[in-house]
């Protein structure tokens, strides 16, 4: 008997119990639809997140750090609040042996595969503009700058030279300082306020402490006077306003790449100069201790706390990190976290897949049940077939093919249903969640071919497994017994 004949008989059997076959197939459809929807949602979640990371330069930027000031000062590290999850060995070089100074920056820039390296300098300061005084986070920027952070301007352009007294501000800054629109801020002045530089400041303080005393009794308390002459200001002209990040999906706003984002950017040398001149008290103590302990020579620069290295291609990330560690610097990249993120997603996907798997398992019981019912009904027919020469193998095959037809039909329809569900969910999410927020359409699902084919094959496999017992039972039917009764 040819396979076509077997298929024909199987289809005929299914047709004869149409309702039962349909209901059984429904079970498979639901199972497959659940599996595919769940897993494709998990994959979509992962894909969207990684895509976003990539768009935000998290994959081709590395944070580099040298021996920081606190380390040079001999500061002890507090006992790590370690949950035992991360073993330090897997996380690259965490103990830098070198100060990240200008020479180090040059060496890093020379590493093969490094597109550029940009030291990170930032500080919080009071800033006056448009007659408003607010606390701002200021960052230094290499000029010229190839970073993706400085590609989109809402108005104006990038700072023209490393020595220019120009600044680039965020769109948020523009709002906070009450400018109507980004273009209005261009050309306006911002003033950074700080105490007068170290020496004069100290001298003034000593004087102050002398003056109001009279035989140890303070004569008057001048209080804090903002307009007092010991406040130093520095002015910058706003050259450009950065366009705000489009809000899209997870991780909205916030960081871009490994460089901390700031509200105001000024040329790097200017920022570095400012940061070292107006260091906070803790930093002052650390510097003093470092110099006294001999870890930092007199006149030797403490270098930068942090720099961001951009690799030309994420493929080179590991090599570059190795070179950085060879040079004696520590480094950090998101890719470390990526493996953990991937593991988490694998678990999520597995759990989602398992849920679907369970519903498919339930469906398989339905298939077995249907098959057994059908055998009971068709005992006589099977007996006749055996009496006229059907082999056991052929009888079994009829049942396997029946189950396979149910499995494949259920699988294909299930995938289509899952596809419909994801399309509908995407539409609804866009219509009711994303669009009101002004975000663009996101495909939350990822339905790769392997998932489609895999789900159908899985349904087929489960169905055939469900038919194992019924088929062998059908093959065991004794024709004499089956034919005796009327």
């Amino acid at each position, binding site marked *: *008997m*040819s396979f076509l*004949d077997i298929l024909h008989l199987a289809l*005929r059997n299914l047709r*004869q119990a149409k309702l039962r076959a349909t209901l059984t197939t429904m079970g498979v459809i639901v199972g497959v639809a659940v599996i595919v929807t769940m897993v494709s949602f998990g994959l979509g979640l992962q894909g969207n997140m990684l895509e976003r990371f990539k768009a935000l330069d998290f994959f081709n930027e590395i944070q580099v750090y040298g021996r920081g000031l606190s380390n040079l000062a001999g500061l002890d590290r507090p006992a790590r609040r370690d949950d035992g999850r991360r073993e330090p060995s897997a996380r690259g070089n965490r103990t830098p042996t070198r100060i990240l100074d200008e020479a180090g920056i040059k060496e890093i820039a020379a590493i093969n595969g490094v597109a550029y390296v940009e030291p990170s300098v930032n500080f919080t300061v009071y800033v006056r503009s448009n007659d408003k005084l607010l606390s701002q986070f200021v960052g230094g920027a290499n000029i010229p700058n190839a970073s993706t952070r400085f590609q989109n301007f809402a108005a104006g352009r990038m700072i023209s030279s490393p020595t220019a007294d120009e600044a680039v501000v965020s769109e948020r800054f523009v709002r906070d300082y009450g400018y109507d629109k980004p273009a209005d801020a261009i050309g306006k002045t911002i003033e950074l306020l700080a105490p007068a530089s170290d020496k004069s400041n100290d001298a003034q303080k000593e004087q102050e402490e002398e003056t109001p005393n009279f035989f140890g009794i303070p004569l008057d308390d001048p209080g804090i006077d903002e307009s007092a002459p010991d406040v130093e200001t520095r002015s910058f002209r706003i050259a450009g306003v950065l366009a705000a990040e489009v809000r899209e999906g997870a991780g909205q706003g916030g960081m871009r790449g490994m460089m901390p984002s700031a509200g105001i950017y000024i040329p790097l040398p200017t920022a570095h100069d400012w940061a070292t001149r107006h260091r906070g008290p803790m930093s002052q103590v650390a510097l003093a201790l470092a110099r006294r302990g001999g870890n930092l020579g007199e006149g030797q620069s403490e270098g930068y706390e942090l720099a961001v290295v951009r690799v030309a291609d994420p493929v080179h990330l590991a090599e570059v990190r190795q070179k950085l560690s060879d040079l004696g610097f520590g480094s950090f990249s998101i890719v470390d976290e990526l493996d953990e993120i991937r593991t988490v997603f694998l678990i999520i996907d597995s759990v989602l897949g398992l849920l679907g798997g369970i519903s498919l398992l339930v469906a398989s019981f339905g298939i077995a049940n249907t098959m057994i019912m059908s055998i009971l009904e068709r005992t*006589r*027919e099977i*007996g*006749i*077939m*055996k*009496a*006229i*020469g*059907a*082999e*056991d*193998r*052929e009888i079994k095959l009829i049942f396997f093919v029946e189950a396979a037809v149910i499995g494949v039909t259920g699988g294909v329809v299930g995938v289509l249903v899952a596809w419909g569900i994801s399309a509908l969910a995407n539409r609804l999410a866009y219509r009711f969640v994303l669009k009101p927020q002004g975000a663009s359409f996101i495909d939350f699902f990822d339905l790769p071919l392997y998932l489609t084919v895999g789900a159908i094959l899985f349904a087929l496999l489960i169905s055939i497994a469900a038919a194992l017992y019924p088929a062998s039972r059908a093959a065991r039917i004794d*024709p*004499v017994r089956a*034919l005796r009764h*009327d």
Partner: protein
Amino acid sequence: MSAILAAQEVFKIYQMGTNSVTALDNVSLEIGEREFVAIQGTSGSGKSTLLNMLGGLDHPTKGEVHFASKPLGPFTKKEMARYRRFSVGMIFQNFNLIPTMSARENVALALAFGGLRGQQRRARSSELLARVGLGDRLEHKPSELSGGEQQRVAIARALANNPKVLLADEPTGNLDSTRAHELLGLLREMVNQDGLTILMVTHDHELANSFADRIVFMKDGKVVL
């Protein structure tokens, strides 16, 4: 005259709890090639049981069945299926047609097991049904056919794969005497012209006398000449 089908000291004992039924009690029988043998016997004498043994549907409790001098005992399940498919054709007491299939489909199913395909299968099933006089009932379901017509579909199916031997269990049971004569005439013709060997159970002594070469009598599971 060499025996094509032979039973040798065959016993069939059905165990029913504590008591047993001896359906066949030391039956020995030889049927020669191109012979038309009739079996007569009272109800429950073991005629159908014997036919099942000879047709390879069941194994004797003791004794052996030989086909063309080969014992069936050592046959594998698959060889047994092949034997039923190609060597013997069976007509059952109650036809045993598949009720959801048309006359043609019932015959074609046997042809399908025999490996015939497509156009050939269609042609052969039509030809077989025409031979038993049902050329105009091809697409009728068993329920749409009379008892005699169903019986003839069963004959057509039994002959589908050109068996050497036809085992017929009361093929004339449901027929009036005219129809019964017609049918046995047809079977006789098949023996004479096509070289078929027939073993037929019948209650009708007159019919057996006029068409069969030889009559075997059975009683209480034994052959009594």
